[in-house]
């Protein structure tokens, strides 16, 4: 859900972010974007642009470095077909998986659990997010009042306040269990093969589910009338506010078929990381303060590319090659990092290895023993680089000579 309407800006911060956007419609932060924040928390450019809801893909195209993302129609078709199958016939298959994979306390842990199942009708009109959120909330409140029933909410809409602005999130399914606990269900189309799945994909799914659990906790706290802000993922609040469990159910195709199977995943760690990132997002105002006055990234064709470029350049990026897999602006940031000669363009670990040397030229100067290295003569990283360069030159240069002596030694030994 990239285009959830978020209504008119209300808070001063929202006003400022709208100015930054320059009148363009806001792109809602979705769970994927929120989860991706945790991937590169140091990137101010991403933080500001995401918080403002700027269309980064369109921005990247305007900057001349279009993003290389896209999903094959075959993959999309397969994903939708699988989700339809899981939730078909009143979620029969999903319910079987929930019963099998979630450990319920007595008396609901019987093999022949026959608790009644309810699938309340929710408002689904994407143009009316406020009503969708209200209907989700009402359904959750109703379900909480009646234990002993499975209530499955298909594509509910949750609201999470992030840095003073509202984010709308749409989990695949929320299951209210007979014991009154709420479980987030995440349906993915990558397979669980022989009981294991691609760890990168599972990790991404866990981070996404963690965002949903956070939003669900906020909703539960709201219904219960308590404060959710200070709750750690490792400590469950009392009463209704503690209803959402930190264990999500991941539903995937089994092996090479499209029959669903499931695994319960503990998302507490992902919740803790995301929570910390979201709290950091409140620093957006400080990031905005640091920008030159009047900065905005309006994609209107009347603006020159130069203006746009300098507006983007005003926001510090923390590029690393990992960004290529997750951020639309990555090609632009990579170009920028390469032009600046940043060593991080070669990989995140490189920075650690070359210590205080920040650019390719500085590092190579240190390696060649050229004076003027910023670390000074006592700089350990520079010394190590110099030693490495000497060894490398020796190995590449004296190759012929060394091989010759070795062969000589060997034949000499045999005689």
């Amino acid at each position, binding site marked *: 859900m990239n285009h959830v309407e978020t209504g008119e800006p209300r808070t001063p911060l929202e006003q400022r972010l709208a100015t930054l956007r320059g009148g363009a419609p806001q792109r809602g932060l979705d769970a994927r974007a929120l989860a991706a924040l945790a991937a590169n928390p140091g990137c101010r450019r991403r933080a500001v642009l995401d918080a403002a809801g700027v269309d980064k893909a369109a921005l990247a195209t305007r900057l001349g470095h*279009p993003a*290389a993302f*896209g*999903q*094959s*129609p*075959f*993959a*999309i*078709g*397969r994903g939708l*077909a699988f989700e339809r199958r899981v939730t078909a016939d009143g979620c029969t298959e999903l319910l079987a998986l929930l019963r099998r994979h979630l450990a319920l306390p007595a008396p609901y842990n019987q093999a022949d659990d026959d608790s009644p199942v309810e699938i309340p009708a929710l408002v689904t009109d994407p143009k009316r997010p406020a009503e969708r959120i209200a209907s989700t909330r009402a359904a959750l409140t109703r379900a909480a009042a009646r234990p002993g029933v499975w209530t499955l909410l298909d594509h509910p809409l949750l609201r999470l306040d992030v840095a003073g602005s509202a984010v709308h999130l749409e989990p695949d399914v929320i299951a209210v269990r007979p014991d009154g606990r709420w479980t987030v269900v995440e349906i993915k*189309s*990558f*397979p669980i*093969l*022989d009981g294991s799945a691609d760890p990168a994909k599972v990790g991404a799914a866990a981070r996404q589910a963690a965002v949903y659990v956070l939003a669900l906790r906020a909703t539960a706290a709201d219904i219960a009338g308590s404060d959710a802000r200070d709750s750690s993922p490792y400590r469950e609040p009392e009463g209704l506010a503690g209803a959402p469990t930190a264990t999500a159910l991941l539903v995937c*195709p089994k*092996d*090479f*078929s*499209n*029959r669903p199977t499931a695994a319960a995943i503990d998302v507490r760690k992902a919740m803790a990381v995301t929570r910390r990132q979201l709290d950091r997002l409140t620093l957006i105002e400080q990031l905005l303060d640091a920008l030159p006055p009047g900065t905005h990234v309006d994609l209107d064709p009347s603006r020159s590319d130069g203006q746009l470029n300098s507006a983007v350049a005003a926001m510090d990026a923390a590029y690393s*090659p*990992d960004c290529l*897999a997750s951020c639309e602006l990555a*090609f632009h940031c990579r170009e920028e990092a*390469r032009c600046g000669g940043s060593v991080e*363009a*070669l*990989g995140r*670990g*490189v920075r650690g*290895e*070359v210590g205080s040397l920040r650019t*390719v*030229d500085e*590092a*190579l100067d240190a390696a060649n023993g050229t004076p003027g290295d910023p670390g000074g003569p006592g700089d350990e990283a520079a010394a*190590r*680089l110099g*030693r*490495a*360069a*000497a*060894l*490398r030159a*020796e*190995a*590449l240069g004296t*190759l012929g000579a*060394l091989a010759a*002596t*070795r062969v000589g*030694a*060997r034949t*000499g*030994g*045999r*005689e």
Partner: protein
Amino acid sequence: MSLLTTLARLQAVRSGRAEPLATVLHRHLVERPMVLVPLAAAGEAGAPLAVMLGRDRERPTLLTVPQPLDRDRRFTFLAELAAELLPYLESFGEQVEVLTKETKDAETGEKTEVSRELCLDAPQIIVPNRGGIDLLGLLGRSTRFRRTAEDPDPGPYPAPARVPLLGRWLTHLRERSQVPGSSMLLAMTDLLGRHWATGQSTLEDQHLGALLAWLDPPAGLTGTEAALRAETARDERGQLLCPPAGPTTDPRFDSGLLAPAITRYDAARQLEQAGHPADPAAVAAREQDIDDLLRSILLPVWDQLWQGLDLLRTLPAAEHLPERWTGDRWSYTAHRDRLAAGEPPQPVQDDAVTAARKLAQREREQTTVEVQEALDDPLAMAEHRLAGEALAGVVVEVEAAYDTTGRSPKPRPLVTVRTADRPHADLGRELHRAGGPAKQQARLYGVDPGQGTITVQLVNGMGRKKEPEPGSVPAPGDQVCFTLFELTARQSAPLPEPEDTPWTHGGPPDRSGTEGRTEGRTDGRTDGRTEER
């Protein structure tokens, strides 16, 4: 990434082209490997879309699945793949050498000669990247338990006869590719990445086109520019000029060209099945369209793989390659024997002992490959010298010295080496001589940073006489190298036979052969993809 690799990358950034990471070729390349580019259907686990393969650069064979969701078409494809690959894989089983080993019978203590066959050569398959290796593994996993029409209980969807056998070979190749230093199934990006450093990150090196752009940039372009062009340049139809090397295709290729072509093929099939013989060649023509599309994105990758092989062949082969290739030959021979003995397909999960053995083997091979690469390649040894695990330099002085504690004096000469290396070791630490005439050990005797010298005392490998054998002690002016690590990998502790697995590890595995059977049955019955169409 080590500091030396980082340095090479930094140098590549400045020079605008790839810089060497090795002075010799560290993986065995057979004269005519089987080059194979697999493509997977997007969104389906392990569903093949196409394969381009062959041993002749000028004549690649293309196999395609016009409708990836159609089980029959997939089986036809797998049968064709088996017909192409199995003769090659099996062709090495005939020529063998017979090795005899003397062993002691455990009970009687009598010495007996045991002879074993070892195939003279083994197959080698080169794929573009690790994704290709994984896809072959998935194909192996999805086909090796299949039942065929010859099976007593063939099930509702019997696979073509040789497909399960193909699955077992693919499974074996993929397993072997996990062993460090093995060369039966290799990814081109790994091969090139081992031997050259580009001015981009390892992540970006996974793109074969971009990697080759750094290695051999077109005239007038730097590596950065050429790599960017390989990654992003598109033609007027919006298609990548340098298609990805698989196994996934470019989403815009899928949506813009492939999906419409498959839709047209499906429509033609439906007309045919509905009994409209309007154009009998329609289905074949639509199939041909799909073939042409897939050929257009596979041929560039095919050429890249051969270009990569050309580049690798410019390097001289490392000394230890035949030794490691013998390991691959043993692995090939063992699999040949298992097939001949009629053993069931490899299980989904290994039993405890097999798993422990595999892990121990991989650890041992990892050590071996690191040591052998260091011995073969001064640039690899430089890594160890930088890490303080080795020292190398020119001998400046040799002083005869003797150990007189025993009955007869033994030679213990002191060798002083001029080097800037500073091994991380205390005096007295055991050293191993690398590249010497024979196995030889030494002790670290003294370090003089002021003079820039290190003195070592040789302790063995000099014969039994009072004076060392000629040639066993280096002379002033010789280049020598000593390592802190041993030059051969240690054998791990013996493991029990699988039948003797202790109860702590689940007890002996159930060898009744039912594992594979049940697996095959589940798979056969509920492969739901075709129903889904």
